[in-house]
Structure formats: C-alpha cells, structure tokens
C-alpha cells in the first residue's frame, strides 16, 4: 500500500509542475486577522473585475497568477473587504479587520442564516479544530471544544465509537445522542471510523429548540451539522497534500500488581496457592528465574500513518473538490488496528443567471478493523485482563525460547495470559466496512423572491464481520462438542446492509423591503431506512485452510460420539450442522414543516417553526407528533444608545420549543414493532419446533418530547478582541419511554410504556481573548469554554418515588440523577477482625451486607461539569497550540481494581500490590483491605470501588513551523508546514486505572484505554 501511494504521489508531482510553469507572474501572501495575527483560512482572493481567484489555505496562504495592472480583492465573511493593487509586488500580505456588519453565516439546518440575525444557541467550529487530529473518529476530536457537548470515548480501539451527549442525558432508555448531519444527509451517529477528518470544512452544533426544531423528529438531543470542503467558483487548481506519521502508547496505569517475589511471599503468608509450601529460599530462587511483566508480551507502540491529497478548482459556473485519503492506525495491543481508504468528490454548479444551483457530495469509504476479543469483559481472551491477573511466576517462553501460547492449554483462570495470547495470535475478529454517503441538491428561483429546492441523500453502510477460531487454538479446539469431535474450529461471518434514504423538498419565499427582511419556507421530508442482516456459523473446519469455505465439514457428517454405532435421535451426533440467520427491519418517518424568519431594522429578529412528524414506530393513533418553536433576538449594539461603547457586538437571545424523539429504545432500528403482539418460532421441546409468545405490544407508545427554554447573550468587545457567549437552559423530557413493571403472570416482568419526566438544567459559557497580536512577532490568544448541567428525574411511572433495580445505576428516584449510584456505603475494614464494614441506612457500622441498606450517593455516571481551554500562539513561522479538556463530578465503579483486590481470587490470579502491603493481618491493623479469606466484596452493590473519574487532560498540543518565508519565491510549492503533535499527553485524575475517560459506563472491567498519540505531520500546498 505504502509503495502504491508513493508512486501515486510522484505522478502528482509531475502533474503539478506542468501546471505551475504555465503562468507568468505569481503573487503569494498570507492573510491574517489584524486583531491577533493568526492566519485566516478560507479568505476569498479574487482578481478584481474577473472571476479568477481562490481561497486561502489553512495557513491563510494564497498564491495567484496575475499581471502588474491587476487589483486583488480579499474578502471573508465577518471581515471588511480589502483591495490591493499588484504593481511590482510578488508578496502581498494582508491583515483583515473584523467588520461590524458581521455577515458570517450559520448553518442552522436546511438553510443558512446570518450570524447577526440568528436567534438560536449555536456553536460553530472551523476545520482546523478537527481536521489534522490523529484520531480515527471525528467525534473524538470534538471533546472539550463545545460547551455542553460531552464526548465519552470508552475504548482505545482505533475508530471506536464515542458516546456523545449534548446538554446532559435527555432520555432513560431512548436515544441520547444528537443527530449528525453531513452535507445535509442524516447519518449514523455511532459510526465515524470510515470517514476522513481532513474533508471537514466546519461543524455547527445546534443546541436549543429553535435550531433543532428544523430536525424536530430527530433533534431532541440537538444536532451536529458537518459541512465538507468545497471548491470555489473562479479559482485555479489548488492541490494540498498532508501526511502524518506517529506512535501511540498506553497511558500510565496508576495501579500496581505484585511481582513474582511479592506474589509468592503473599501466597505463603495467606497459606494458599502456589508458594504456600515453599521455603523463603525457594521463593527467592523462583522469583529470580521468572518475573514476567505480561504487559511486555501484549502491548506495543501503535503506529499511525496517514496520507491525504485534495484538489480543488472552479470555473465561472462549476467548482469541484476532490480528495483521496489513506489512514492506518494500529492499537497498543496485538491485533487491534484500523486501515481505511477514502475518496470524496464534491461538485457545485450554477446557471449563468445565478437562478439555478446544484451540487453533489459523494464520499466512498472502505475500512478494515481488527479487534481484540471480548473487550471490556472478564473473558480470559481479553488482553486487558492480563496485566491485572496474570501470574508473574509463569514464564512467557517455552523452554526452547519461543513464545508460549498454550500454557496448560485449558480455559482456566490461571492460564489467562496464555489463553489470551493464543486467542490473539491465532484467531480473527475483523470487520470490513464499506460506507457511502452521498447527496444531490438543487434549487431554482422560479419566480421573483420564490425558489424551490430538493435534496436527496443516502447513508449506506455495508459490514462484513469475520470471526474465526483456528481449529488448533485453545478456543477453537473445543468449539465442536467440547473438543470431542474429529474436526474443530469456528468460522462465522455476519453481514449487514444499512441503507438510509432522506428526501427533502421545499419552497422558499424571501423578500427584503425597507427595514423588513422576511423569509418563509415550507418543506416535506421523507426518511426511510432498511437494515438487512444475515450470517452463518460453521463449526468443524479442515485445519489446513480453515479461513475459507472450502474447509467446511459437511453438515450431514455423522460422528459416533458415544461409540454405539447409531446416530443419536437428538441430532447431537451431527455436530457440524451450520447455523444461519436472516433478518430485516424497516423504519420510516414522514414530516412536513414550515419555518418563518423575520428581521426588522437588523435589530429585532424573530423565528418561528412548526412541524408534523409521523413515525412508523407508533400505532396509528399516536403516530403523529407536533413540534414547534419560537425564538427571538435583539442586537443591542445596534441601538443608538450603544454608540461609542466598547461593544461591537451585544445580542440577547431567547427561545422556547418542543422537539421529539421516536427512537424510544435508543437504537436506530430499535422498537420497530413494539406496538404489536408477536409470537416467535423457536426450538421447542425435544428438538421440535415450538411457538412462543415473544412480545406484548403496547399500542399506546408515542413520541418522547423535549421542551427546552434557552436564554443567551453573545458579546464582542474592542472589535472582538474579547468575545464569547453565555447560555442558560432548562430542558424537560416528558413521556419517557420506560419499562413498566407488570406481573410475571403475563410471562414478562415489564412492558414498555411512555411514563415519567426528566429535567436537565444548565449553563454554558465560551470566551475568547486575543491577548497579544503582532503579525510580524508574537501573537497569543486564549480560549475557554465550560458547562454546568444538573440532571434530575422529576416523575416516575405510577407516581412512585423510587424504582429499585438490582444493578449499580439502574435504580431511579424522584429528585435523584439519572445514572446515580444506589449503593451500600462502604465503611472500610474492622480493625478488630479484618472483616468488611458497611453503613446501614441509619449510618451505623455493620459487618452485614444487606441490599436494604442501599442509599443514594449523589454520584452519577454523567458529569456535572465539562469544558476545555487552551491557547493558540505564533512567533515568526512557529506556532504552538494547546487544548485542554476536563470533566468533573463524574463517578464510575472500578470493577477491574475490585478483581485484583478480591481475597477470593488470590489463589488463581495475581493481585494488587495493596494486598501485599496493606492487607489486614492482625487485630489492630488499620487498613482498607480486608483480611485474607474474607468474602468477596467487588460484586456487591457498595461504594467500595466507586471512584471519582473526573479528569483534566492536555488533549492536544501542536508545535508547528510554517515555511512561508522560505517559500515565498518558490514557483510551484505555495505553502509548507511541519508540526509535531501529541494527543492526551498528560492526564490528571484520581482514577486508579489507565484511563479515567469512558463512554459513561457504570463500571470498568478490563477496558481498552484510550491512548497517547504522538505524530509528526507535514502539510504541503501546490
């Protein structure tokens, strides 16, 4: 692959040179913001009186062919337009001043609107905040960048999904993640591993009801609108090549296990397990000979390689953007990796009278993901279990010096490292994915002030999952009939095809007269999605070519397992019969809606929207939901009394509205038939076919609704040198989809119903400050954002105060938080006898664990505080940028640590160093570790391992150098930049594990931590 790319690049180089020599005079330069001296990417540079021109690159650089008599026009929304005659100059650098008219646009949905007249709570991010980050998933890079937007990544697997929360968690069982829209196409919010970050132009986060009312049927949790890069009309060909190379490593683990000497000594002390009968001298000898650090065997530095090539150009009526991407990242443990190829073509065109516009956005992506097995479980094949429990006095090597991948060959606890290694090396767990996102759009102004528009989009994902157990592996060798059959091994594949169509048709009326500006649109929207899954499982493979279908042992092969000469009647002597599956789900939504915007005198802005949505998930009577919003804003800085004030921008906003959520069980394809009673055919008694009651339908199911009130203020002082915004909100979810307990006499314990209420209240702030701004010297600007969110359950089913669950966080209480731990308070160890101590409900100490002593802890899996801060600085050609992120008041149960402190497991596995150092041994010992032989506590619902998972993390730091000066006379390279960057370089946290971050899960159990990534990058523009 690498070879091919090199070849491809060489070809491009040759291609580029030819273009470059075709012109006479080239003017280059850098466009910066005058206030802080930072580059201003995306500035349009036009030759006055022509349509020739281009946009500045990410470093604000441009290069354009001109004659000395030309005049260059520099324009950028929100900045005053600058004109410069060319004359004899070959370099023209421009510092742009913010323009008080502030015509920056905001993409709020199906349309765009001007920043000054928007009435909504919106945050916009530009490309550079995400596009050069070495994260395989776009979502990961958003962490800490938007107030109120929580990104929780629970796995270090390259491309792993993140859980995304906007303004708290808004549903108990329904979907809690915001809607993602790429170039107008709603896409799967859980799958970004195949998409190319480099293509992103900007990201808009819509938070309140007025913005997301446009997506009312799916916008209950807000919406994240991603726009990809496009070519510019009338611009020359620009070629950009970017590459990164780097390593990733595990973060510091923040816990310790025993080494050989400690473990054997410990076993001797407690009198159980290997070592209990050894002399001190024998222990010393063994621990000198073997003291394996199993991390050395399983973990490795991961590698990141990326190449991205993009071409953009435009004629008068046509523009294109084309990109080609390659990304490869291996995880920090064996076998884990991601490799992907991306191709994008964005095309725009228009009629010469500007009345007809059209465009297509196509992206084709292929990725191959290799996964570890049983991530986040106690299954012995999980490599992240190994450093916790593997015994250090076992050797990783065979006597002949080769790596031992068998051990005892048994699937037993003490054989964990060998089983895990065996499985990792020999078996396969892979997903190949083809992802296509495409849309076409067109609009036509068919009469004065009236235009019609259409957009059709498709998000298509095809997955092939491959799961193979080598017949010779520990697992594979017992795959058929517990190992008691001639052929062994498993080869299973599953396929899923997910196609989501979206079609939008609209009519728009827009008129400006006098001080009035009116814009009215009506739309209909059609959504339909199809999921087809199928798969097979073959057990019994010829070991020579077990990866292929030709190795499958025929299903009618008879094995005389009990040597009685006849086939058993129950079919168990035909062990190679393959398993097959097939399923199909269809989901649809139909909507019509209207939006009205009105602005008076550029000061007073109003927006109203109303929509009707019908979802196929609900029975006819409850199918339609009505959602609406009203919002307004006041540009105070434009009032006469503000003349001469330091405020160049001061705007007050307010919005109120209702949005809906039909994904009441969370998954995109969930609850598709929850309103129907169904039976199912299954394996009945004695190998017969049986019919079973499968589901009791609830015809009353309906939309969950979210009612949100938002007040906000936007401000800019001293020509935006200091700017920011503050928002407060109250978000109430009603008709929560929940389990309603029913008597077991129904054959089930719960049915699903719309019951209860949940409230999120919070505040958010963003502030940016350009402290020093000197385009020729030192510039620095600071930014910070933060949010506070208070979650509270305000009503439960049947009017009860509490619904108690048997888990850590599935109890619900009115006045409590969602995801709050309900547990027995751990009170340490009784110094008198070394037994665990708890608090009863009255706070008294007791040695008896009883579930009735559980109390609300006020500690939740969801954070109260979240945010980020950092600075961007530049000096001459150097840049140094940092971004910190933090979450606070977030808790999680440390189940992994519980295992290594479990006194019941010490004979089977290694344990925490705390057992060796701190375990209670004699009356009077004051310690937190109960005596050897005491009962296991970790699986009880106590607060013992409930830890503060707050963290502050240096999320990203980049040191770059820009070769602008050195290249100013170069005639084909227009820009070059090199940089080194580190992700997750430093983390401050009390969490005892590798990684305090998670996907808001309630317990850690040998999870794959997110990693530190170091990369070296280069960015060239031709």
């Amino acid at each position: 692959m690498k070879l091919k790319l090199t070849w491809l690049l060489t070809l491009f180089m040759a291609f580029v040179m030819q273009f470059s020599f075709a012109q006479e005079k080239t003017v280059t330069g850098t466009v910066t913001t005058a206030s802080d001296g930072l580059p201003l990417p995306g500035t349009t540079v036009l030759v006055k009186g022509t349509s020739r021109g281009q946009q500045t690159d990410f470093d604000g650089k441009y290069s354009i062919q001109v004659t000395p008599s030309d005049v260059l026009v520099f324009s950028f929304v929100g900045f005053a337009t600058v004109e410069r005659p060319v004359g004899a100059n070959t370099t023209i650098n421009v510092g742009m001043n913010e323009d008080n008219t502030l015509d920056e646009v905001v993409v709020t949905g199906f349309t765009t609107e001007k920043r000054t007249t928007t009435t909504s709570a919106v945050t916009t991010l530009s490309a550079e905040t995400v596009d050069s980050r070495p994260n395989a998933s776009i979502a990961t890079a958003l962490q800490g960048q938007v107030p109120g937007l929580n990104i929780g990544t629970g796995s270090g697997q390259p491309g792993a999904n993140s859980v995304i929360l906007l303004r708290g968690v808004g549903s108990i069982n329904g979907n809690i993640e915001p809607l993602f829209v790429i170039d107008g196409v709603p896409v799967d919010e859980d799958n970004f591993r195949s998409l190319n970050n480099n293509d992103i132009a900007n990201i808009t986060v819509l938070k309140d009801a007025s913005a997301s009312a446009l997506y009312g049927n799916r916008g209950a949790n807000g919406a994240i609108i991603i726009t990809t890069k496009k070519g510019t009309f009338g611009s020359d060909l620009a070629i950009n090549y970017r590459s990164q190379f780097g390593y990733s490593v595990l973060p510091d683990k923040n816990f310790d296990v025993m080494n050989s000497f400690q473990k054997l000594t410990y076993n001797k002390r407690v009198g159980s397990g290997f070592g209990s009968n050894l002399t001190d001298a024998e222990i010393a000898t063994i621990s000198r000979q073997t003291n394996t650090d199993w991390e050395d065997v399983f973990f490795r530095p991961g590698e990141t390689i990326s190449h991205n090539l993009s071409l953009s150009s435009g004629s008068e009526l046509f523009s294109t953007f084309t990109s080609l991407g390659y990304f490869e990242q291996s995880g920090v443990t064996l076998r884990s990796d991601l490799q992907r190829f991306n191709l994008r073509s964005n095309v725009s065109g228009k009629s010469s009278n500007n009345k007809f516009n059209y465009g297509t956005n196509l992206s084709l992506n292929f990725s191959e993901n290799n996964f570890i097995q049983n991530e986040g479980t106690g299954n012995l094949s999980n490599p992240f279990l190994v450093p916790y429990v593997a015994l250090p006095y076992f050797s990783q090597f065979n006597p002949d010096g080769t790596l031992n991948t068998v051990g005892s060959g048994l699937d037993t606890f003490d054989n964990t490292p060998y089983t895990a290694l065996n499985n990792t090396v020999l078996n396969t767990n892979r997903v190949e994915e083809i992802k296509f996102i495409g849309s076409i759009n067109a609009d036509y102004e068919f009469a004065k002030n009236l235009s019609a528009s259409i957009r059709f989009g498709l998000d298509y994902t095809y997955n092939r999952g491959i799961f193979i157990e080598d017949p010779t592996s520990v697992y594979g060798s017992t795959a058929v009939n517990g190992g008691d059959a001639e052929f062994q091994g498993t080869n299973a594949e599953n396929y899923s095809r997910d196609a989501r169509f979206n079609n939008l048709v609209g009519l728009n009326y827009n008129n400006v007269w006098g001080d009035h500006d009116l814009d009215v649109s009506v739309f209909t929207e059609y959504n339909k999605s199809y999921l087809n899954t199928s798969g097979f499982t073959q057990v019994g493979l010829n070991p020579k070519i077990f990866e292929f279908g030709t190795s499958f042992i025929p299903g009618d092969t008879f094995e005389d397992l009990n040597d009685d000469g006849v086939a058993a009647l129950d079919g168990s002597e035909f062990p190679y019969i393959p398993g097959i599956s097939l399923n199909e789900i269809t989901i649809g939504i139909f909507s019509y809606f209207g939006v009205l915007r009105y602005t008076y005198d550029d000061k007073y802005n109003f927006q109203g929207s109303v929509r009707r949505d019908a979802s196929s998930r609900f029975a006819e009577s409850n199918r339609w939901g009505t959602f609406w919003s009203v919002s307004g804003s006041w540009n105070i800085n434009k009032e006469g009394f503000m003349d001469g004030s330091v405020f160049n921008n001061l705007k007050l906003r307010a919005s109120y509205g209702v949005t809906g959520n039909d994904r009441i069980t969370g998954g995109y394809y969930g609850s598709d038939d929850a309103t129907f009673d169904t039976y199912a055919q299954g394996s009945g008694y004695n190998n017969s076919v049986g019919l079973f009651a499968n589901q009791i339908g609830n015809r009353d199911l309906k939309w969950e609704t979210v009612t949100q009130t938002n007040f906000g203020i936007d401000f800019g002082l001293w020509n935006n040198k200091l700017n920011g915004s503050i928002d407060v909100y109250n978000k109430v979810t009603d008709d929560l989809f929940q389990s309603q307990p029913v008597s077991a006499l129904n054959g089930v314990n719960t049915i699903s119903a719309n019951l209860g209420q949940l409230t999120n209240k919070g505040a958010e702030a963003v502030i940016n400050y350009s402290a020093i701004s000197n385009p020729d010297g030192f510039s620095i600007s600071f930014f910070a954002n933060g949010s506070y969110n208070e979650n509270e359950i305000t009503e439960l089913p049947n009017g009860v105060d509490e619904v108690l669950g048997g888990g850590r966080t599935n109890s619900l209480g009115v006045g409590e938080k969602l995801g709050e731990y309900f547990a027995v308070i751990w009170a340490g160890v009784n110094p008198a006898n070394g037994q665990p101590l708890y608090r009863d409900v009255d706070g008294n100490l007791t040695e008896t664990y009883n579930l009735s002593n559980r109390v609300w802890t006020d500690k939740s899996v969801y954070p109260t505080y979240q945010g980020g801060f950092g600075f961007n600085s530049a000096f001459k050609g150097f840049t140094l940028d940092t971004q910190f992120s933090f979450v606070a008041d977030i808790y999680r149960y440390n189940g992994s640590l519980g295992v290594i402190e479990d006194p019941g497991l010490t004979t089977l596995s290694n344990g925490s160093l705390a057992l060796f150092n701190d375990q209670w041994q004699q009356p009077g010992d004051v310690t937190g570790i109960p005596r050897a032989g005491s009962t296991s506590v970790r699986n009880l619902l106590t607060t013992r391992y409930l830890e503060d998972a707050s963290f502050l993390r240096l999320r990203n730091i980049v040191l770059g150098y820009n070769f602008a000066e050195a290249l100013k006379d170069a005639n084909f390279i227009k820009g070059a930049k090199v940089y080194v960057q580190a992700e997750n370089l430093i983390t401050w946290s009390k969490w005892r594990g590798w990684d305090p971050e998670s996907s808001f899960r309630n317990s850690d159990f040998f999870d794959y931590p997110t990693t530190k990534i170091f990369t070296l990058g280069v960015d060239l523009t031709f």
Partner: protein
Amino acid sequence: MNNKFIVLMIVSLFFACNDAIEIVPEDEFTPEITFESVSDLQQGLNGVYAQYNFEADITYNSIFTDNVKPGYASGGQQIPFFNWLLPTSSGNVTALWNSYYDMINAANRVIEASVFVDVSADEQVAFNDILGQLYGLRAVAHYHLHTYFTTDYLDESALSAIISDRVPVVTEVFARNTTGEMYDFILEDLATASGFLSSGFNNNGFITEDFITGLRARVALLRNDASGIGLADNLIGQYPLANPAEYAAMFFDQDDTEVIFKLFRTTPVGGIWYFTNSAGPFLEASNGLYNTLEAADDVRLGVNINLTNDINVAEGGPTDISENIILIHKYPGNSSPFVNNIKAMRVSEMYLLKAELQVKAQNNLPGAALTLKQLRDARNGADTPLATYANSTEALADVMNERRMELAYEGARFLDIKRNKSILGGISRNPIDCAQGGACELPASDYRFTLPIPQVEVNANPSITQNPGY
C-alpha cells in the same frame, strides 16, 4: 426548465407519506396467524414444555443446601447464593418465579387459543392429548411455585403463590392465593388433564397419566395425607426398581426402567456446576454428601460422584480425594458432555414418599423400614439389613438420609429440608464445605426456608404480601 423542476418536486412528494409510516411486521407471527390448526397447538405445546426450567430447581436445591461446596475452578460463581445471601432480587429466586409463570402463561395461551381451532374427527385424540398435557403442565408449574413460596404446607390458610388460570390483561395485578386454594387448583387441573389424556398416551418424555398419579402423590406428601401411599403403590406396582447396572445406565440416558417422567434436554445440565467448555467445576459435591454416599457404598456413589479413572476432561474429572476435589457426576453427558435428560420423576421417589407418609401420616415405623429396605436392596443389588426405629424422628431422619442420596442433584434437597425442618432441623453443612465464607448453619427457624416474592413482582404489584423476613 421551470416546469421540469416542478414536476420532479411533485413526483417526489407522492412517493412519500404512507410508504414511510405504514410499516407492518410482515416477518412476525402475529396472534391472528399463530394458532390456526391442531399442529399449531402442538407447536405451542412444544413451546410450553421448552419453558419447563427444571434446571432452576436443581440449581436451588443443590446450591442452597448441603450438597455442594465451592469448586477448585471457582471464580466466585454462585458464592453469595451458596452463603445464603437471599435478597428479593436474587437471580435464582427470580428464575424460579419467572420460569414457572412463563410456563403457565404459555400454557394458558394455547389453552385459550384451542377453543378457536377447528378439530376434525381424526384429530380429536391428538387434540385431547395436547389439552391434557397443557393442563398437566399448568398443574406442575403451580406445584413447583407452591413448594418454594408458601410459608406452610399444612396450614391451608397460609399464603402460597398466585393461581393463574387465564392469560391476564397486561396491567392486572393479583393477590396471593392460600395453600388450600392452591391444592384445590392443582388437583382440579390434574383431574382435567386426566380426563383429556388418552390411555395410549404413555411416552415418559411427556405428561402422562402416571405422572399425574405421581404428582397427586407429591401433593398428598405435602399435606401429610395418607392417601399418597395408595397413589405411590399404584406406580410402584407398574414400575420396577432399576438394578445397579440399569441404575448406572439410566444416568447415561440408556435405561428407562424406573423413569416415570423425564425431560428431554439438548443443552448441558451440568452447567449448573461446571464451566461446560473447560469442564472446570466452580462448584463440587460437598464432603457432607460424599461421606454419606461413601458410608452407604452402593451404586449411587459412582452415579453422583465422578470416580472414573479415565481422565475424560470434557466430562469433568476425575475426583481426587487427596486434594479434596469431589466432582458431581449425575449429568456426565450422553453424546455431548453434560447433556442428559432430567429424570423428573422416578419410581424410587415413590418408595421414599411412601416411607415418609408411613412415618408421618400412619406412624407405621416398621412399614417405613420395609419400604426403605426394598429401595436399598435394589441399589445394593443384594440384601440389606432391615432398620428398626426407636421413634418417628429417627425413622424420618433415615428416610431423609435415603432421599438425600437417592435424589441428589435432582431438585429435591432444599424442599425436603424445608418440609421436615420442624422435626429434623435446618441445614447443617460439613465444616469443610463451608471453610471459606463461614456460612455453615441455617437453623430451622430461619426465614429463608420460604423464598421472597421476587422484587420484579413487587415492582409491578407493590401491595402483594411479602413473605416474613424480607
């Protein structure tokens, strides 16, 4: 241009709306099409049998008592339950409650649907046999629930479980019935079942007339009702006791001499105590049971404990007494490891039931001794001495000791202790079995001999009467 665009728009509008929102689950069995014929009813019945989760009984009766201890491969599985931690959310309690009510609900659905099925003359016998089995299954499910959840077998006004004789409306909640009502209901269902079953229907893998007789005897035992002796004798007359070779073969599914009712199984029963992939035991036979079996030293020692010398790892084994490894062998597997049919009613149980009633209902101690001797002779394959008892307590203790050996790991031990705890005391473990964790004694007065109404039921029905102590 103009017109083309408008046409395109209008067309796209039309292909929308109902196509997107009228989606019916064509791929599902809706109630309208599920039960239309006698063969559909048979499939429904197959589903009811499939929900007969006798493994829940075996789990409860072996682990909560003195018949197992933590195994060498324990990773903590079932240990809190072994140590008698019994919250209302206990998975083992919930499993019993849920699986028997699931089974009852399934039976009620098929019974109610049967009314609407057209039955031709040549289908009538098959149709009646289906109904007979459904009523029999509904009765036995109620019987199981009653045994665990009632506070008192003999007090007819004590609370039992809930009687469910129809498919409820989903939001309905129910109060608990009394023990007396429960006995009446079970016997009434058994009479209905008996009326439907044809005389030729005698496959012991299904509900037959003989099983119904045996279940009536079990109900009589709970009530100290001497009529159970006659019922037991009826079956004793029909089914011989297995000789030692037949007995050993029976647990490899190769002999049915004394099997009145068995449940076919295709998944490992031994998974109750073993990791079935690796055959590592997280629970082993208790030293208490082993010592008892070893003292008796008959065919039951090798049937219950894996003493085979061939190291067939896949079936768990072998036992290594020197390391105190004692492995359960009642479900060694037939063609697949740990997969065996469950012998849910054997004629030996009828001997034990008869002996117990002879002691408790008739105070006929010599008679009980003679009944036990018949069983012991069969198990030894030789003549055994006739016991003499000084009093009924001694006789009952001997019956219980015999039951422990004969019905080990067959879902009886906990209920046997519960039934006779007022005379013989509660659970007392061999000190070696409870060395870790220290839970050795559960006195007769302990509330945990009656199971809690599970939390899942209380959630739906907060006013239901909970059993004392929870």
